[in-house]
């Protein structure tokens, strides 16, 4: 018997679709100060560090690597880990990022992939990583950044996604969880914040979808990976 999970109660049988329900009292605004405190608690002090772009692309056989990545494209337009492996949003993010960095985005079928990606959005507004799985805030990054890279971010409902991401916040501790009501952790906090940035939240710096770093940092070192429009 398949079981669907909704927040902390179990609903239905395998006849039900997997999604979460956002409670009416879920957080609906960005709790910036809470998150700042949460993240700061993990480090002792802020140290400057230099970013280096080591430019080591020439040490690998890029053509062969591109060939391999493209061989991981599946019948549904998505990418798996290896040829034949199930399409998965995390893998797709790696592949689109890779194709961007190697200047090979034109090899994608952007319409087909964009369709598969926008199908990740569930009625709750959240995104899952593959069909018939629960939404998870980290897919707000993997899926959203992929869509941004291939120029189809407008194919998801932004308002609904924003609502889902905000509902994943913990009002007491700060930070974001994988889905509303769960425990927060730094991983999901990063991707919740990054996802909100991609959606255009003005309180957050612009983030680069390929490298998941602030755009101003990349501009400083002159690194602007390709995106499709």
């Amino acid at each position, binding site marked *: 018997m398949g079981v669907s999970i909704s927040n902390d109660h179990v609903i239905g049988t395998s006849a039900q679709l997997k999604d979460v329900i956002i409670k009416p009292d879920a957080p609906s605004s960005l709790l910036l100060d809470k998150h700042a405190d949460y993240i700061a608690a993990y480090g002792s002090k802020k140290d400057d560090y230099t970013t280096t772009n080591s430019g080591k692309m020439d040490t690998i056989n890029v053509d062969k690597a591109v060939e391999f990545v493209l061989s991981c494209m599946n019948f549904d337009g998505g990418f798996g880990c290896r040829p*034949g492996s199930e399409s998965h949003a995390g893998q797709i993010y790696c592949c689109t990022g890779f194709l961007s960095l190697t200047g090979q985005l034109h090899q994608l079928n952007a319409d087909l992939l964009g369709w598969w990606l926008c199908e990740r959005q569930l009625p709750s507004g959240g995104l899952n990583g*593959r*069909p018939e799985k629960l939404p998870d805030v980290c897919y707000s990054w993997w899926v959203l950044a992929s869509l*941004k890279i291939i120029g189809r971010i407008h194919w*998801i*409902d932004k308002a609904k996604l924003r609502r889902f991401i905000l509902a994943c916040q913990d009002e007491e501790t700060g930070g974001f969880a994988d889905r509303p009501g769960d425990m927060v952790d730094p991983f999901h906090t990063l991707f919740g914040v990054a996802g909100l940035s991609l959606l255009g939240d003005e309180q957050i710096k612009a983030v680069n979808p390929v490298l998941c770093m602030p755009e101003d940092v990349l501009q400083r070192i002159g690194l602007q990976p390709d995106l499709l429009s």
Partner: protein
Amino acid sequence: MSSVQEASTETTEVKEQKEFEGDADEQFGESFGADPTRYTFYRDRKEWADLEPVPQDDGPNPVVKIAYSDKFADVYDYFRALLKKDEKSERALALTADAIELNAANYTVWHYRRVLLQALSKDLREEMKYITNIIEEQPKNYQVWHHRRMVVEWLNDPSEELEFIADILSQDAKNYHAWQHRQWVIQEYKLWDKELEFVETLLEEDVRNNSAWNQRHFVISHTTGFSDPAVVQREIQYCLNQIRKAPHNESAWNYLKGMLQDRGLSSQPGLLEKVLELKETHCSPYLLAFLFDCYEDALEFSSQKENTEQEQKETLKKALEICELLAQEKDTIRKEYWQFLGRSVKNKYGGDGPSVAEEAKPSVPASETS
């Protein structure tokens, strides 16, 4: 968590003490000294006194320094010492198990363990048991699955694999690692025979298991292929049967579309009619999307079918109606996509067809602003 009460207070007391100390490793008898429940750090074990522990070097300005426990730091200080010395010994092998228990994602430890297994000519069947235990505890760890693959290759014996993977899948039918390992085993050792049957069993249990549908595609494409019309017919029938049982099934529709799209959706005799029939009783956004794909395919290949201009117009009209229906009513969350599709077919195939009701202006393609 067990809801069973502890049988004796003695057991409870020992358990609490173990939890206080951290995990007590019963397999490493010599590390206990007088009290068998007390864990001894490597630095306090006399049989390790010859080795100088090597602390972790985080560099001059660590940004987010991990707060390792004493136990963790101690084990890994000695692991680094072994690496530095390139020591190949039983005690080193035993230590790798401790290191793995503390962090099963450390691939350097796994690599070293493999070096040791070979250098010491260890019993690989015993190693398989060890691997099985780790996977049962941590079924989503990448490194242990890779390790299993290596050992299976060394043994050149996949005989336990399908059953083992089936067991892991019985606990989580969508475990990505399990499926990937399964695909490797089947492809490497040509164990295709019963796999379609296995897939069908899983789909009986959960017809929405996308991993199982993916596996179905994998098996068929590597065995009979999809060129044989009899196979295609059988698969179409299978899909439609599953859809009747659970209409709102993304995987089944994706599979159907994926299988047919290169061959031409509209080239399958009777398929369109069957889908139109299903539309009355088992409709879903996926069905409608599939219908659209059929119409689009018909428009694309109209020259081969000698469609009349009137038929073309009719088909275009139906395609646009579906986009409208999806955008406005049946799948509004993806309204932008359906409107894009509507515009695309209209631009490509018609000029006189009805337009899809749109927002005030067409969507702006994604640029740097969002």
